[in-house]
């Protein structure tokens, strides 16, 4: 389809869904440039197959996003260091108080292994069912449940997240 032009419905999908896909990308990667990179990568990969998709286009794009994210993380995992505290953020707390909660959230997500993080984003942000999450990630429903359970356990111990989950702000 690449040589045949823009597939029907692709523009409408991008216009309607790219904000939500970017937000999922932000939760996966923790920053906007990487999120944009991720979503653009997925859309570019989906373009040539768009007209022949036999499943929900959004699920397909999310599947590419997750697979791409997992591939990036596999390549870059050694550079990732989870921290228990956020000293570099607290130092600027007065100036950037409005982003402290989001920073605490991304720091908490950074503590999760890639697959657990992907399950959290797909299940609890993208609101996919366990079956849809399993289909998107290419694993069993049981594996999704296991990843979710382990992710919740890790997030319980994340600094500041308990307050956030009850509607407060990170301290």
């Amino acid at each position, binding site marked *: 389809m*690449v*040589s*045949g*032009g*823009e597939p029907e419905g*692709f*523009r409408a999908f*991008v*216009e309607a869904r*790219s*904000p939500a*896909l*970017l*937000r999922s990308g*932000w*939760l996966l990667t*923790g*920053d*906007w*440039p*990487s*999120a*944009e*990179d991720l*979503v*653009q*990568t997925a*859309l*570019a990969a989906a*373009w040539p197959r768009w007209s022949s998709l036999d499943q929900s286009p959004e699920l397909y794009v999310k599947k590419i996003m997750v697979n791409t994210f997992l591939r*990036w993380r596999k*390549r*870059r995992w050694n550079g990732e*260091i989870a*921290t228990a505290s956020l000293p*570099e*953020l607290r*130092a*600027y707390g007065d*100036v*950037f108080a409005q*982003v*402290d909660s*989001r*920073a605490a*959230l991304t720091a908490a997500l*950074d503590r999760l292994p890639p697959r657990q993080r992907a399950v*959290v*984003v797909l*299940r*609890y*942000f993208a609101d996919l069912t366990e079956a849809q999450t399993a289909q998107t990630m290419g694993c069993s429903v049981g594996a999704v449940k296991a990843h*979710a359970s382990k992710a*919740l356990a890790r*997030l319980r111990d994340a600094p500041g*997240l308990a307050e*956030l*989950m*009850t*509607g407060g702000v990170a301290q």
Partner: protein
Amino acid sequence: MTIEEERLSEMLHRLTPEPPRAITVEDVAIRIANQAASPRVHGDTAVLRIPNRGRLRWAPALAAASVVAVVGASAGIGVALTSHSSNKPNPPANGGAVSSATGTASPSDTATTPVSTHPPEPRIPIANGMWGAVLIDHDSFSSDTLVGGAGSLYAVTDGALVRIDPSSGNILQQVSVQTTARPVVVGNTVWVAGPGGNAHAYSATTLAPVAVPAVGAVTALAAGPNGYLFMASGSGITILDPSGSILRRFNAAGQVSSMAVSPDGGTLYVGVNDHGYFSLERYNPATGAQMSGSANPGLSTGGNLVATSGGVWGTIGTAMTLRVWFAPGGDMGKLRFVTSGANGAMDSAPAYANGVVWVGGIRTLQCLDPSSGQVLGSTSIPADGGVPEHFGSVAYTNGHAFALYQDQRAQLEGVAAVTPPSSCAG
């Protein structure tokens, strides 16, 4: 869902911010074109490497052209992506001095090689050229590495630093050095930071090696006023005086990825990438004391700092997500973006020359007010048959402006002389 899961879901929906910009079909089309024409690795921090002539994979580039052309027709970007390849001559077959010079350099050869005996390269007007751009050199250079000074131009090609005659476009000398960073000209010395190694310094007129104090693996260089040079090695910062002697050493708060010195020499801006977050620190060069820090936790992978009288400029993101920002007064809380994503990667990195800031890429070449960040002049960068052309890394020497140019479809690239409007005079 359990109550805990519902709370987690509610928190994710509540705290996840709205994206700063939406993705368009045109973004995706440009992405496809760039992926096909110049494959990149995610997370590669710096560099859109311009491949050497003769080693380009033109077939993917042409395939990409058809993709974007088709997209343009249906997506409304046909007007912006104007083909002009029919107006452009083919590249010279002999390659001139540049090609032969770079082709014979040995990566392990550290000697300076004079290559000034060749005739001038043909000057090729760039069709729909930006500000009357004329290609004066036809070599392949790494993006964002063209600088001017001491009456010459300097740029980095594959495995070498070269000195270019701005009037003829000829490469006068070259010296083997492995780097992809922008050279820094201080007085009569050209400095480059080799990846993972010590800094290297060369005479600006001969490219003969100059002795360099050992400070460890250099991660960033910056020129200060009056001949001072700032070198970063890890978190350590060393200031050299105009004689090349160490004046002062102090430590930054983290691993320094980029530096810039304000034109008055009163502030050293230091970019730190730590645990995925970019922060900007400010130091007093006279004392090494940290002045005040500001950070924006929403940014990551920052760098390419440029300091002006009005503040500090830099980039976030990598490859095609690279965006240019301006922080008035160095206050990251007032940061605003100068470019959007998918704008030519490192070709859009800011440069400060002739008193104004320059930002190129694949869409527009702009000059901006160094105090206010306002656009003073702008010209569109055309596309060749749907394939984006790259234009950026503006440099000045002898009062004339130059930039790096690449048109993969027409197999044209090199240094272009440009004539910016008077509004771009600093």
